[in-house]
């Protein structure tokens, strides 16, 4: 294609061509509310959206292809770059898939530490989501209260293995390092901090009339539609479908924990927000229980299973999914018996959610579209891979 042709087609997509009575507005990939590099081409009638066409691929880095060219251990750091708000969940999900393929039994102590860290990552992820949702609706302050607590969580991550955002947590077969000795005091302080911040946010937002007007009934989705589109995680639970892999297909040690799965009713922005707020509290409960079990373990309990030096799973297929903060995060691996996967496929939760975005915001206003996008927590890193 010639340059001029290119620029022409670009003009057509982006600039002032009205289509009949409607105006085409290009939102993103570089826009303050398009977190990461999302792009929506919206046909608008005044402020109402006639149709919205999400376009993806601006953050495509060929992660799955990379997986075919790296050996099993080398791929762990790449998974950090999927949902970078909760890298630990990605790491563990991938490791568990490989472990399942190889039939490795991970020591209980390592599983407990993994659960503690994963739930911390879940809290961090939800805190970012709620904060950003506030910012996108014009309430700037809760963001800071929450982000300060997320920083505290990152401090714990940093103090565990030196990394804050891209944690590269664990190994195939277990962990290298134990929880540091003063985790308990740190966690107690952090728990109070998180609860305080959530309380403040709750006071500022949940019963605020402007907030409820802006979120209740906005971009609502029915349970049937949600299931048809392949929703998982908080977005599905907000619609009223009680599905949580931690309960329904318990992996690791989750069947031992006592926690609730919050469910919404209307599947609107408000429910998605409330689900996240409630899930943070449930995660705190899980961490408390997990840490209690962890303390009962002998100090010299093993942290990593016997794993061969070169990881060469037997030929075969495996799919393993966990309940990541955004929903079902699954890894499909086909092994041909070599030290690299023959094929690696990632099932990111927000890909399915973002498909339905155009459907969800049809007939809503531009401001609602932004609120809807924030409440879905679409992370470009995981979406485009």
């Amino acid at each position, binding site marked *: 294609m010639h340059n001029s042709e290119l620029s022409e087609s670009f003009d057509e997509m982006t600039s002032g061509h009205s289509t009949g009575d409607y105006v085409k507005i290009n939102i993103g990939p570089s826009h303050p509310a398009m977190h990461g590099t999302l792009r929506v081409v919206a046909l608008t009638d005044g402020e109402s959206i006639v149709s919205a066409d999400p376009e993806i691929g601006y953050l495509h880095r060929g992660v799955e292809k990379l997986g075919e060219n790296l050996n099993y251990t080398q791929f762990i750091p790449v998974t950090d770059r999927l949902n970078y708000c909760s890298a630990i969940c990605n790491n563990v999900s991938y490791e568990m898939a490989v472990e399942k393929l190889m039939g490795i039994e991970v020591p209980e102590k390592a599983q407990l530490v993994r659960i503690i860290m994963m739930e911390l990552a879940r809290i961090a992820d939800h805190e970012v989501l709620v904060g950003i949702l506030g910012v996108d609706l014009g309430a700037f*302050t809760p963001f800071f209260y929450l982000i300060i607590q997320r920083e505290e969580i990152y401090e714990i991550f940093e103090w565990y293995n030196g990394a804050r955002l891209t944690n590269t947590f664990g190994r195939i077969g277990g962990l290298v390092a134990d929880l540091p000795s003063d985790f308990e005091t740190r966690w107690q302080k952090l728990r109070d901090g998180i609860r305080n911040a959530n309380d403040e946010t709750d006071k500022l937002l949940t019963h605020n009339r402007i907030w409820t007007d802006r979120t209740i009934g906005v971009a609502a989705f029915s349970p049937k539609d949600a299931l048809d589109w392949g929703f998982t995680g908080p977005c599905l639970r907000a619609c009223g479908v009680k599905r949580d892999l931690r309960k329904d297909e318990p992996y690791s040690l989750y069947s031992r924990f006592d926690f609730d799965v919050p469910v919404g009713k209307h599947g609107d922005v408000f429910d998605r927000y409330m689900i996240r707020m409630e899930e943070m509290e449930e995660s705190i409960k899980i961490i408390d229980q997990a840490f209690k079990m962890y303390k009962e373990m002998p100090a010299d309990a093993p942290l990593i299973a016997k794993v061969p030096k070169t990881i060469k799973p037997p030929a075969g297929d495996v799919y393993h999914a966990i309940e990541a903060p955004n929903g079902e995060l699954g890894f499909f691996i086909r092994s041909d018996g070599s030290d690299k996967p023959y094929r690696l496929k990632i099932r990111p939760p927000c890909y399915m959610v973002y498909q339905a975005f155009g459907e969800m915001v049809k007939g809503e206003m531009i401001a609602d579209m932004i609120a809807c996008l924030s409440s879905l927590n679409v992370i470009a890193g995981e979406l485009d891979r």
Partner: protein
Amino acid sequence: MGEILIALIKVVFIWVWVLLCAVVMTWVERRGAAMIQDRPGPNRAGPFGLLQPLADGIKLFTKEDIVPAKAKKILFMLGPLLFSFPAFSTFAVVPFGDKFVIDGKEILLQVSNVNIGFLYIVALGSMAVYGIILGGWASNNKYSILGGLRSTAQLVSYEVPWGLALLAIALVYGTFSLRDIALAQSGTFLGVLPNWGVFKQPLGFILFMVAAYAEANRVPFDLPEAESEIVSGYHTEYGSMRLGLYLFGEYVNIVTLSSLITTFYFGAWHLPYIDMSAFLGPISYGIASFIVFFLKVAFFLWLFVWVRWTVPRFRYDQVMTLGWRELIPLGLFNIFVTALVIQLTA
């Protein structure tokens, strides 16, 4: 000659003073936000970051002035000027203190005591929106035009309740002159309450406050520049000092609005229960009234900051619903009750 000189001094003084207030407000806004949000805020330039506004000014002035190629150039340049001009001009009728008495000659602390102060305020208040619409239109950018249109929708929703609240004030005090209204608020009524507008017009005060926040284009009514939705709204394409004028005009605007709230509803320069003129000399009384007035203004300025960092933003249709379906009926009701009370007690 003397008259003109005094008028000139007053104009220059109040202009510089409002400018200074607005400059300090940009600092207060950022430090206040930081205080509310548990963070330090700007603290590098000067003590407590006090020189930050200066640094910002230098930055804005020295930046390249960019006019988009397809923009309507003259309108594009006119926008920021039209926006910031009314904010300053409104101050001409605001009594920012009582008076000095020098050699038996009274000098009012007000640039011009016109008897149609109300009309002047309402007229100029609606002018600022032209700056926004022009800026949005001339930028030739879809986000900008959306911002401009939102501003128009907002204007028609808040101007009417704002006018209705003012009308009730005019009914109560029987005058259109701001100085006369301020003078009428001394002493007490019903024996205990200070004779302030807020006690005589509680509903009117709420209406006026809401409309003032909408007029100032601030959260929860900052839809014309809603950052997360339409990038920066009407000033998306603006840079350097043109952008500065928009941002700065907003602060001048809130200084003006706070002064109006103080004048109409909080007794202007009067202290409750204390008559300052009884025990202060003619000159010190003038200064004291000026200080009291601006202390009250400072409180409302802080309220603007406080509200901004506490509540989320309305949606554009919700502002219109609020204006047309809630504020206007309340405003009419307020006028009706006010008129009834005046008629019955007359």
